[in-house]
């Protein structure tokens, strides 16, 4: 039972997560990266978990990746999110060690499989651009 007037739960923006949640306004997916050792940092924090440097800044990444795993959610948890929908964990190309929990959109819920190639697309919600993914069809 969807409710068209209901809003998705949205993140509270702060200095650490703003690039991730708003980069979609310019069509970019930003992940924090350590300028000292090159490691990617997610969830965003003002320190590199590998070398402990605090020289971290957002870097635009390719926005493509692979479905690492997923589930088809059938339970209505929230009025703004009518089931069924696919919740997936996407491994990003060129961003070792980082996964994103997201939705796979633009296809039937029974069309998603582990290993599927996917590409980011952004779902604007107020000042947030949620990075969701669609299957790459080629």
């Amino acid at each position, binding site marked *: 039972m969807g409710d068209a007037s209901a809003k998705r*739960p*949205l*993140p509270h923006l702060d200095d650490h997560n703003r690039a991730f949640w708003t980069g979609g306004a310019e069509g970019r997916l930003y992940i924090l990266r350590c300028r000292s050792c090159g490691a990617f940092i997610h*969830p965003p924090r003002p320190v590199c978990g590998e070398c402990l440097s605090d020289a971290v800044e957002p870097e635009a990444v390719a926005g493509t990746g692979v479905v690492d795993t997923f589930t088809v959610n059938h339970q209505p948890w929230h009025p703004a999110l009518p089931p069924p929908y696919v919740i997936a964990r996407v491994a990003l190309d060129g961003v070792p060690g980082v996964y994103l929990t997201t939705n796979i959109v633009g296809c039937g819920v029974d069309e998603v499989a582990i290993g599927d190639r996917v590409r980011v697309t952004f779902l604007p919600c107020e000042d947030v651009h949620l990075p969701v993914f669609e299957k790459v069809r080629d």
Partner: protein
Amino acid sequence: MARVREAFITGIGQSQIGIGLPRDPLLLTVDAVREALADAGLTKEQIDGVATYPGRVTQVPGFSPVGAEDLIDALHLNTRWHLGGGELTSQLGAVAAAADAVRTGQARHVLCFRTVYEAGAMKFPGQKPYVPRGDARVEGPSQWFAPFGALSAVCWVAQYAMRHVVKYGLTREQLAWISLTGRANALKNPRALWHGKPLTLEEYLAGKMIASPLCIFDCDRYSDASTVLIVSAEDALDEVSSIPVRIAASAGCTYRHSWDQVEWMASYPTGRELWKRTDYRPEDVDTVQLYDGFSFLALTWLEALGFCEVGEGGRFIEGGRRIALDGELPLNTFGGQLGAGRLHGFGFAHEAVVQLRGQGGERQIPGDPRVAVATSGGGPLATALLLARD
């Protein structure tokens, strides 16, 4: 120089278990305390420590309505050591910490408890879980899941289960045996939430899908209950009249707390770590009481603890014979959370003690059980206790 003592579970107690119980959660706690004190042969004046997980929580209705300090205050306990917090290695981490407290002489008898009132709290209006109130934005770790509708732990556990389906060939017909075994054992536990309500494989397979591959019968049910364990020091055992069960080892490992940033759930490193801290081996274990808030977690614990190879859990439990009450490795003999109710971790240690003492009644496993494993959590957090009557 101070001597390091052994730690024992000397008293166990449990309230009634129900949905929407009209009894105040503090009184449910006291019901379990009374039973545990009587079981151990102790009085409240002898309790000098209290431990609970996750402490009093007000944000989530009924999740943890009674904190350590609430109980200390209400029962006029004079404590030398106490603990009530959520940043532990999951629920039984409070028991592991209590064991360390008595080993190092900081307390002699620690009353450990976990009280849940999630079903009762839902009877009150405006306390629907999972729906952020008003326009409040999501902060902290939830922000990485909530916007995508991953609003329950089942959405996260299901993804690990799906990986087992694809990578290792896990089937619903195999996974069913965690739930079916729990429900079968609940038939022999008069206190169990699902006592008198059998579940068949056909009913399981027809169960409403929640988050594939997990259906309604793979998920525990909000319950109201309290469970108490008294942990005592070796040199205080002469004050106790029960059969003590030794906490032979404990472990709780975490790689990353973020659910979606790890390849393996915390159960796996925790299971491996447990055996580094004891001379016992998996083949010495007579029964396992493994966290099954979601069925798949119990399956991962079987793999993590080395009872079968990683990926073999489905084939290990298939058909249910091996993990039945009279099987080679009886699982969740009280029903687990899927059969007895969402006791949230403490029920597993409680039942391990029941079985090792031979007090299981109709559900008592055969032979002379001496070694059991009890676990809690398994996702981002995990705790394993090795319990022995030796």
